[in-house]
């Protein structure tokens, strides 16, 4: 069944909302240097209320909260996209190769996947992060290495069924090489699954990064929504939570929602049974 993903995504309400918000985040992040000041610069003006000078006021060390919010979006999106790509790549590499090569290799790969599935990754991540205080790039690698196994399993099973599908046999019967089949049939056929896997990983990564930052075990020099909320909570007795805690929390929720909406919408497109009407 041929599906025009892009057309379907634009037709779906959730998909539309997700896309618009996603584009909004991307634009904000890209133009950040032009609409903010340096988020790290500390001034004498502490606990300022929102004004034209400081759109969301300042924090306890006189940093501009608006700037920190926008730069925090950069961190979240970078982690989201980084983890999305890396973990999907790992999952595809191990899952697809296990299905295609088979034999002992597949056995070993599957046992490794099983092992990773039973490891409580969140706790492990907290422990490791607490020790090494990862930078943003290291964090991406860490989360990806602990969270590729789910995608790998799905990709493997999809590849297995693809491998046996008649159109691949047909391609073989035209004399197609393994590489041709991999790049012209299997990978393009896996693309929708890879996109979904990417979105799920991205959503999870946003949440993870914020969580680790919230409990204060990531690189302290990185601006992050999690960290903002962590700090803001220390001053809960002041009015400042309205423009410090709340915007950060809402931005985080919004970004997670973006990925949730996109994922949900794509899932619906790929499984026509989930659609309300097939008009």
């Amino acid at each position, binding site marked *: *069944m041929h599906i025009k993903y892009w057309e379907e995504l634009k037709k779906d309400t959730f998909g539309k909302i997700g896309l618009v918000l996603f584009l909004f985040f991307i634009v904000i992040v890209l133009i950040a240097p032009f609409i903010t000041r340096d988020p790290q610069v500390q001034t004498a003006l502490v606990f300022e209320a929102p004004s034209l000078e400081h759109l969301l006021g300042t924090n306890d060390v006189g940093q501009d909260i608006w700037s920190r919010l926008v730069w925090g979006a950069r961190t979240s999106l970078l982690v989201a996209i980084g983890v999305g790509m890396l973990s999907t790549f790992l999952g595809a590499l191990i899952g697809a190769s296990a299905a295609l090569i088979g034999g002992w290799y597949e056995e070993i790969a599957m046992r490794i996947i099983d092992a990773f599935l039973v490891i409580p990754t969140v706790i492990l991540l907290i422990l490791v992060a607490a020790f090494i205080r990862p930078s943003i790039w290291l964090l991406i690698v860490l989360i990806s290495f602990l969270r590729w196994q789910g995608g790998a399993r799905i990709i493997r099973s999809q590849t297995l069924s693809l491998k046996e599908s008649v159109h691949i046999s047909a391609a*073989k019967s*035209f*004399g197609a090489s393994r590489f041709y089949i991999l790049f012209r049939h299997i990978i393009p056929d896996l693309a929708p699954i890879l996109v979904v896997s990417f979105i799920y990983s991205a959503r999870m990564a946003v949440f993870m990064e914020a969580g680790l930052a919230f409990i204060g075990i990531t690189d302290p020099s990185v601006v992050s929504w999690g960290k903002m909320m962590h700090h803001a909570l220390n001053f809960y007795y002041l009015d400042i939570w309205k423009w410090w805690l709340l915007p950060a929390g809402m931005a985080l929720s919004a970004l997670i929602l973006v990925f949730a909406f996109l994922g949900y919408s794509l899932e619906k497109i790929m499984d026509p049974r989930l659609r309300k009407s097939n008009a």
Partner: protein
Amino acid sequence: MLKIKDLRVSYGKLKVLKGVNLEIKEGECLGVIGESGTGKTTLALSIMRLVDEDSSASLEGEIFFQEKNLMEMDEEMIRKIRWNSISIVFQNKEDALNPVHTILDQVKEPIMENGGESKKEATEKAIHLLSQVGLASRCIKAYPHQLSEGEKQRSLLAMALANDPEVLILDEPVSSLDTTSKADMITKIKRLSRGYSVLVVTHDISTVAKLTDRVAVLYGGRIVELASTPLLLSNPRHPYTRGLLRSYPNMTTTKDLQGMKGRMQPVEKGCPFYPRCTQVVDVCKRKNPELQKIGERFLACHRGGILPFLKVKNLTKYFDSFRAVDSVCLTLYEGETLGLVGESGAGKTTLAKSIMGLFHSEGEIYLEGEKVGERDKKFYKTVQMIFQNPRESLSHRLNVLEAVREPLDIYKIGSFRQRSQKVEQTLTEVELPSDEEFLDRYPHHLSGGEIQRVVIARALVLDPKLLIADEPTSFLDASIQAKIVRLLLNLQEKRGLGLLFITHDIALARKVSDRLVVMLKGKIVEEGPTPQILSSPSHPYTRNLLRVAPTLT
């Protein structure tokens, strides 16, 4: 009795016979078959030395009758032999009978003239002969225009037999008759010609089957195949003979009305049949093949007759310990349909996929005589497969153009434009539109019949010589099935496409197959020409298949 050596006849520039060698033994009935225009009648008239009457004709070669060369005789000597020792029943009855004399007079005349009998004796003999050929007594004194075709034919036969000749030549003796008269005439000829040496020249294969002991196939002025009648008709080896037999509607074979590509055309150099042949190699265009003895027959073909295209020897395929295909041997000849029949689970698809190299299997496979190891691009260019479920065998991501072009992409044949052109050409060949709109359609926009045609087009785009069709019509309704099957047979006629036609439906296999293979539990239980298996199945499973085959009663 009669020996023809290197007989060449031409009318002006037109060469009709290009070196015919034939021998009619004493008491034998020899048939010569071929399409109209191959020189059959010229051959018959040459023996009678009647070709000379045409001033533009030139004859070369030798015709020995009882060790005497007819070609060296003068008209006087010929006249003594003609009608007395060698007589002919002409094809053209109107010209052969004199409209102003009664039948009796016309039969009587040669008896009196040559035999020297008295008028009374001659009349008696003529009446006896005429009644023997089955002419009603009321016709004996009639004039030719008062007689029906059949009656005229009988009169001519009586005339030819009048002087008790040694050699009787029959030129299309029954072709213009209706079936019942034909049958009667054939029995009469058979009875009356006993003891004579007979040459039957006809395009009617059934006449040859009933009358002759040996048959020569004449094409383009040359004999291409010569063998005993039953052998030649049951197992033709020259592509032309096969084509001729396939075209002929009859009650024995079921796959008939299928002919050969093209039409007869004069050939300057090379094998006379090469423009219509589907297994031509270079030498066929350069040199005329000599008639050579191969086994029990004579054959003129550079390739030794119809090629055994695909040979499978002892192919075995295990799934774990289950033997899905068990030492299967089969041979598929060039341009023929081999029907592979059996119930589901018999191992038909496994066999097909093993041949295609999609399953690893034991055993040997030969393609055009060469052993095939690892299936490579060369193999796949010659052998293609249509999979059982055509819809699944197309990727949903590819539109018609991309799907049909895929094999060309893999082989990197031609430029992008050339590939697209080839795709359009192939689509037209399978009777599909090739406009932009259709090329841009995706599989789920196509009907079952269209999908099947797209899949067939994709398999044909590399111009393979062998197509393995796995249940190509099992999920189509009867009317579309009929169209697809006819399409495949047309392609076979045009391209000489060999078909391994896999089906569970013996009624369908019966209409498309030259030969049948019946498979049961991974083994071949019966194999042979389709009509033979249908009329006398030897294995109980085949008998059961035939018993439960679809009927309308």
